[in-house]
């Protein structure tokens, strides 16, 4: 049932997102939107010297699913290496969310991950990898 998508903790992430805002000196900055519904996510990442996520912030607008899942994502990837993040899939996001994502909302749920991974690709391309 779709109503299960709107569990209390999802709405809490939506209302009071974790890691909201910007960073002083981010290594990675990327943003994109989901043109279907207009959801927007902007992500900034600071890396430590081993290319692990030292800090991460995001800002965004959009539906509860896209914003809550990005909020959860930012918590989950802290301390992870870029390689580990690139290996994440939709299924990882679904597991973190612990709610049934209806097919038409998948793009909302994974928007944050897509933006983060695209940001990493741009970062690596810039660094000539």
């Amino acid at each position, binding site marked *: *049932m*779709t*109503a299960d*998508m*709107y569990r*209390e903790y999802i*709405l809490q992430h939506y209302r009071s997102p974790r890691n909201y805002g910007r960073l002083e000196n981010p290594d990675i900055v990327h943003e994109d939107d989901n043109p*279907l*519904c*207009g*959801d927007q996510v902007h992500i900034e990442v600071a890396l430590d010297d081993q290319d692990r996520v030292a800090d991460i912030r995001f800002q965004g*607008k*959009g*539906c*509860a*699913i896209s914003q809550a899942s990005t909020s959860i994502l930012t918590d989950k990837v802290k301390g992870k290496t870029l390689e580990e993040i690139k290996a994440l899939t939709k299924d990882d996001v679904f597991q973190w969310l612990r709610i049934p994502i*209806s097919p038409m*909302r998948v793009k*909302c749920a994974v928007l944050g991950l897509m933006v983060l991974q695209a940001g990493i690709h741009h970062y690596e391309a810039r660094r000539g990898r």
Partner: protein
Amino acid sequence: MRGMPVDIEAVRRDFPILARQVHGKRLVYLDNAATTQKPAAVIEALDRYYRNYNANVHRSVHKLAEEATLAYESARQEVARFLNAARPEEVVFTSGTTEALNLVAYAWGRANVRAGDAIVYTDIEHHSNLVPWQLLAEAVGAEIRVVEVDPEAGLDLDRLEAVLDERVRLVTLPHISNVLGLELPVAEVARRAHQVGAVVVVDAAQSAPQQPIDVQALGCDFLALSGHKLYGPTGIGVLWGRYELLAAMPPFLGGGEMIRRVGLTRSTFADPPARFEAGTPKIAGAIGLGAAVEYLEGLGMDRVAAHDRALAAQAHEALLEVPGVTVYGPPPDRRAGLVAFSLDDIHAHDLASLVDTEGVAIRAGHHCCMPLHDRLGVPATARASFAVYNGPDDIEALVRAVHAARKVFNR
């Protein structure tokens, strides 16, 4: 007869899908502006075609081809009558409104619009009546002039006059906005556009299912509609065009059927409508659309119009009583059969997902009208749109579901 309201219970029995449940609830289908459901008459017409007389049309002389050709051409006649076209040859079957509008933009547009000419459209267009003209303008170097429409008051003809001059080759507008439920004064626009020699294109995707269409009374030059929004099959639509204009137009798609004589490097082309129906036509689709039109004429388009508008007015008023709801578009008494709205700062997709759990199907998004949503200042709205099988109980279900959604977000 004409004065009597639509018998909702009888109509509902004509639509097999309404027997189904969604999430254990009765299906309350209020996404009719996106696509309508199909009466059994249409589904069975398709079935009969495929089970009994499927064949390619026009070009074979055997019995099945004969039956298929007669059915296909009689569908054209039915549509012509439905639109009050001067002759059936003015009805070109396309795959939908979108292809119909692109046909005009490519075939008429590339031959008639030149660098420095101007194209006029409104700021409430559906993307399908926006992008084809943008592509045309870019290809030939034409200028685009946009007429602002007030979401509540409608089109001010003075604003139209302000952009009309002899450089304007084409004016296009929606008959009914798919977001605002606003009807535009097509006949008046056509009269004024013709004074500067412009051709008038009407996007009737939303009006054709909702009210009687008389192309001669509207006085326009082209009119586009979609079968799937008119209780007919997907993948079929109509471009109606004044015969003299069609006859003077170069072809659009090249292929079988639209030719007169093909040589290895040059060809000559058939008269309309064949000239614009390249390749094997959408045979079943046209036959299904013919059945849909016949079904609607059985109900009477006047009654359909009264029905849809009464429901929309009622929905508009009922939604306004939900705290936090904003409704876009004209007041209830001037509203066509749809209502777009938003609820507090709940995103429209969340709202639509939540009301879906109550069996209520509404649409959420920009409804292919990004520029209008930019203007309204919201990225997305929720939209309930009405059809002949909807009734007051559907509106009650909608309002209940919206209340419930509000509770989820405010708990």
